[in-house]
């Protein structure tokens, strides 16, 4: 009895000592979480190596990132992620201390302080019309001691002061059809040449005084053949262009009047390969053209004669010109040949000699070289050395120096398209006992240190030792499956078409694979990666197979572009097979059936509404045909405002007779009135979500039955006027309608209108509830609403007698065709921040309570308990409701800083949050990706099923020892007392 009461006391105190909110101590950072920073594919790089000491490089990327990198290790000094529609047009360094960026189609010019990344000034540039954006930072051009930046954007030439961003002068180029191609500033002069085409056959040249924007000369000349594409400046007064057929090269000189010199490409190279394309380069006297896969490097002699210096089938990249001593220019060419890349550095006027020729071994899975930037340094023997920064096909960034890769950055990980997970292999050899005993002393020592830490007796060295001991925990990055299911592989597909496997323990890359099916080829010019699916998850009878994933891509952005499939083994990281499809891929449905080797059946719906089954095996077809009548799906046509339900009809008829092709039929359709409602969001439940119980016991012992169906769809529509941005409509003109639709029957189960609200809507659907975030125009605040849906038909089953007598309807078949008797409950709350994405935690058995993971506009991830979004919240909950855990109603949702799962970090450019259940019921794994990656483990109801890392075993030992000592002490005391009693 004493023991029982003692236990109760123990449990009571144990739980009362728990903190109700989930939170982290600062010294726990990095124990289970990791954060990686990336940049994206570099599109421009400018070196800053003039000063002795720090060597740095400024880069701008396709993810709209501007960053300063350390050239020694490739680390980020600072980084800014601009807005998603603030695309960077150009970067440069001015005055040796400012980084100048031109962005947003040439309308925003910013200067950043080079050492610390603080923005110094910002100016807005406008112009009469849309045009190319060009940024020029002349080195020796000054207006009243003020260095200037020349910008051509939106049809206007601006000179901007470097010091404060003030526009010193501006000049419009409003010619009706004038398309400015190049702005050339001959070094050492005060002139600016603006060259371009007008009405497709006129070459225009403007000469402008750089000091005041005065137009000095304007000349134009017609060329009957017309022009095509870009021009490449070869000398300060000469450019090269192509005629409209792409077969004749034009050398245009405009020093004294405009003169054209035509050179048919067929004169230069014997065999023509079709129309050419100019690859602009800034190297004096050198340019390149590309015809199909052939690259031709051409030199322009002083008499404007063209000379082919190199013709190659290899993809070639040419760097910009790098001024070296005595007015000479150096440039680099790089090519890929088999397992190596060949780098050559030459002087502009001397093609025949190489300043540098190196071959560097390069991983096959980095693909071709896309870009190269070079920089020089002076060696100890006073000769020039060169370092090259190269951007590869997989978007990685590498620094080459002296024939070696100094560092590399996997910047492809900044643009993740899809994520899935895979288990690690099972550990074959168990840990031997001897090993444990060997470590016993270490183990004890570690715990003694920890104890010292908790008792605040540890010295700073001890604290450092504890911290390093916790971080160095080798267990977490082991390559085998663990008991708790914390160690997994995150398989990510990037925009470059590369597949990476990241270890959840510390985020290191286990393997990477550049998918050939997603690379540019003759048949497929613009491949796009779409999705990742788990293809084979071996367990039970197919234990020896390795798990694999299915990668789905398509050729080009159009809806009827043919698809491409690829199957990749997740243990080895090798492609098992790949398929080029004849049909397109509009929709992919992973079916809940697997064949005897645990391959999951997938149904691919093409643009013509035919269904194709994969894998194409007879076994899969026989499984599928059995379930033919049970397969339903829906499709959303946002543009037309139609949602349709589909089912299968039978084998394909007609010309595409294929074993695995099936015809479909339309079951129902919901047409939204196009003038008043526009679909902006559709959300369903996650396919693999587990629900523990259908019943929900509420206060006063009542039971409510959750309406749990996999076929529920949440749809949000807004008024056509309200589909724009915030601030563009008045509350009266805008409304938002939320629907719950059954996707098998097309029945609308619930509909609610929020007047005066607008999108964007972010929603998450789980179990029997949906939470959505939208903007309330009346209050001018964001709102979050919850809808919970309950099954009323089972509500009368709570009578015990009915259960006993068998009069309940629990065993009656559930069919979606019988009219569901449902009720919904909903409530709305204010939420402070804009939201980028919402996810919900998921656990193995679905017992643990749920948390919403809200990706805020500040690129943080906030964990919010689902209890805050309970429609049964009231202002004054009764005692029974309080016991049930109902929180008193407040008008806005609380933001508790400690519940940011990203703590003091930002996941810059946040795009998605993925949750994966661990094997341990209490724990869920969270992966957030954007430009940065972040991973952590969460326990929404605390780790009630295991001891935390913090658990102090030493204290437990000491307690036991103390208890045993106390027992023996009292034992001897009582013995002695008894003896005395007996003597008396």
């Amino acid at each position, binding site marked *: 009895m004493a023991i029982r009461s003692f236990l109760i006391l*123990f449990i009571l105190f144990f739980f009362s000592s728990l903190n109700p909110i989930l939170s982290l101590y600062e010294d726990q950072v990095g124990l289970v979480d990791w954060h990686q920073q990336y940049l994206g594919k570099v599109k421009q790089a400018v070196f800053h190596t003039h000063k002795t000491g720090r060597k740095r490089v400024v880069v701008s990327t396709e993810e709209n990132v501007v960053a300063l990198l350390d050239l020694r290790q490739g680390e980020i000094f600072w980084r*800014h992620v601009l807005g998603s529609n603030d695309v960077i047009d150009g970067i440069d360094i001015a005055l040796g201390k400012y980084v100048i960026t031109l962005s947003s189609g040439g309308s925003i010019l910013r200067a950043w302080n080079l050492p610390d990344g*603080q923005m110094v*000034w910002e100016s*807005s540039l406008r112009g009469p019309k849309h045009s190319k954006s060009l940024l020029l930072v002349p080195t020796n051009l000054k207006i009243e001691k003020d260095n200037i930046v020349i910008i051509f954007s939106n049809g206007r030439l601006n000179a901007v002061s470097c010091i404060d961003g003030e526009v010193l002068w501006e000049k419009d180029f409003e010619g009706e059809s004038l398309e400015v191609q190049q702005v050339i500033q001959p070094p050492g002069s005060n002139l600016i040449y603006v060259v371009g085409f007008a009405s497709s056959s006129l070459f225009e040249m403007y000469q402008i005084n750089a000091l005041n924007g005065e137009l000095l000369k304007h000349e134009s000349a017609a060329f009957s053949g017309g022009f095509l594409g870009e021009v490449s400046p070869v000398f300060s007064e000469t450019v090269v262009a192509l005629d409209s057929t792409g077969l004749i090269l034009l050398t245009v000189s405009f020093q004294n009047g405009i003169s054209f010199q035509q050179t048919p490409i067929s004169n230069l190279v014997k065999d023509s390969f079709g129309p050419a394309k100019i690859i602009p380069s800034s190297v004096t006297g050198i340019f390149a053209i590309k015809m199909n896969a052939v690259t031709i490097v051409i030199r322009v002699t002083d008499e404007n004669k063209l000379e082919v210096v190199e013709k190659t089938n290899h993809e070639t990249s040419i760097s910009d010109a790098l001024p070296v001593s005595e007015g000479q220019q150096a440039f680099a060419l790089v090519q890929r040949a088999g397992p190596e890349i060949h780098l050559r550095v030459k002087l502009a006027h001397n093609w025949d000699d190489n300043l540098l020729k190196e071959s560097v071994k390069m991983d096959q899975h980095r693909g071709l070289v896309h870009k190269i930037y070079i920089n020089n340094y002076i060696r100890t023997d006073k000769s020039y050395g060169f370092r090259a920064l190269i951007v590869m096909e997989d978007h990685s960034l590498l620094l080459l120096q002296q024939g070696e890769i100094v560092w590399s950055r996997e910047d492809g990980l900044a643009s993740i398209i899809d994520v899935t997970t895979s288990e690690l292999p099972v550990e074959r050899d168990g840990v031997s006992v001897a090993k444990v005993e060997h470590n016993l002393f270490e183990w004890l020592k570690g715990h003694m240190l920890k104890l010292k830490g908790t008792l605040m007796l540890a010295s700073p060295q001890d604290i450092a030792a504890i911290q390093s001991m916790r971080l160095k925990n080798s267990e977490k990055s082991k390559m085998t499956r663990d008991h708790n299911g914390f160690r997994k592989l995150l398989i990510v597909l990037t925009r470059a078409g590369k597949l990476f496997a990241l270890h959840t323990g510390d985020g290191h890359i286990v393997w990477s694979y550049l998918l050939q099916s997603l690379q540019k080829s003759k048949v497929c010019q613009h491949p796009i990666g779409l999705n990742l699916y788990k293809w084979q998850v071996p367990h039970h009878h197919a234990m020896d197979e390795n798990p694999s994933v299915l990668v789905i891509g398509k050729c080009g952005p159009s809806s009827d572009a043919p698809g491409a499939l690829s199957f990749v083994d997740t243990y080895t990281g090798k492609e098992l097979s790949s398929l080029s499809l004849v049909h397109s891929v509009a929709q992919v449905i992973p079916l809940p059936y697997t064949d005897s080797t645990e391959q999951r059946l997938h149904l691919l719906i093409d643009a013509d509404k035919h269904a194709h089954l994969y894998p194409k095996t007879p076994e899969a077809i026989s499984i599928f045909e059995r379930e033919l009548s049970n397969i339903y799906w829906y499709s959303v046509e946002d543009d037309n405002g139609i949602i349709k339900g589909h089912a299968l009809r039978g084998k394909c008829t007609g010309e595409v007779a294929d074993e695995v092709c099936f015809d479909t039929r339309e079951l129902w359709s919901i047409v939204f009135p196009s003038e008043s409602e526009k679909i902006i969001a559709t959300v369903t439940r996650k396919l693999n979500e587990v629900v523990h119980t259908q019943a929900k016991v509420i206060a006063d012992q009542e039971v409510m039955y959750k309406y749990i169906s996999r076929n529920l769809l949440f749809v949000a529509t807004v008024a056509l006027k309200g589909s724009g941005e915030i601030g563009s409509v008045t509350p009266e003109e805008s409304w938002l309608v939320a629907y719950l639709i059954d996707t098998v029957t097309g029945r609308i189960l619930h509909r609610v209108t929020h007047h005066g609200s607008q999108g964007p809507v972010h929603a998450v659907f789980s179990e029997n509830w949906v939470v959505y975030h939208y903007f309330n125009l009346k209050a001018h605040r964001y709102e979050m609403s919850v809808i919970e849906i309950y099954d009323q038909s089972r509500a009368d089953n709570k009578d015990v007698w009915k259960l006993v007598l068998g009069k309940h309807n629990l065993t009656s078949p559930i069919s979606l065709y019988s009219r569901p008797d449902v009720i919904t409950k909903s409530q709305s709350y204010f939420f402070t921040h804009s939201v980028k994405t919402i996810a919900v935690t998921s656990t193995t058995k679905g017992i643990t309570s749920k948390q919403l993971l809200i990706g805020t506009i500040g690129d943080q991830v906030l964990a919010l308990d689902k209890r805050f979004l309970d429609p049964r919240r009231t202002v004054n909950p009764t005692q029974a409701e309080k016991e049930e855990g109902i929180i008193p109603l407040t008008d806005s949702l609380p*933001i508790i800083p400690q519940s940011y799962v990203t703590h003091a970090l930002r996941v810059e450019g946040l795009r998605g949050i993925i949750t994966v259940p661990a094997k341990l019921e209490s724990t869920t794994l969270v992966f957030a990706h954007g430009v940065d990656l972040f991973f952590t483990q969460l326990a929404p109801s605390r780790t009630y099923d295991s001891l935390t890392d913090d658990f102090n075993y030493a204290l437990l030992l000491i307690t036991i020892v103390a208890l045993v000592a106390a027992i023996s002490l009292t034992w001897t005391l009582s013995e002695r007392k008894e003896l005395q009693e007996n003597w008396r």
Partner: protein
Amino acid sequence: MAAVTPLLLLLLLSSAPSFSSGSRNAYNINGRVKIPQGLGLGTKGYALPGRMSNVKVLLNGGQNITFLRPDGYFSFHNIPAGTHLIEVSAIGYFFSPVRVDVSARNPGKVQAALTENRKGLSELVLEPLREEQYYEIREPFSIMSLLKSPMGLMVGFMLAVAFLMPKLVENMDPEEMRRAQEEMRSQGVPSLSSLLPGGARN
């Protein structure tokens, strides 16, 4: 902290017109973010990200993003007339979103209000409502916390039993006491295992 100090000096600067009209119904919104020095000093434990360079200002949920100049000023260019929402993202601080009305009829008119507490702003100066502490602070070691822990309770309970029980026993009837003792003897000497919860059940 050094980056924040000059801001205080600028506190008395007169407000420039917050909105200046541009061409073709496009306006500029100018404002500033001010992080007072008083905040941030009281906390220790995590490095205060006092760097102004990491602060972002967002218009209408990320439609436009801008950064702060060294003096805390920011501006949005080419904004159409209407009611807009400005948010400030700064690690370590909580800012209320601000509702800003850009009026087409009388440009230059300031109308801004914090949406969290509906407080109107006479000029567009954004200050954090509070500081955000992302980490729990470790409680300093105290005897009480040790005693409150399950282990402490266990030891405490044990001690209570060991020293208070004999006192209770003393008040017992001697005859009953003897009977109890005899009963105990007949059971044999209690071993350590029988005292443990697992053994007690045997």
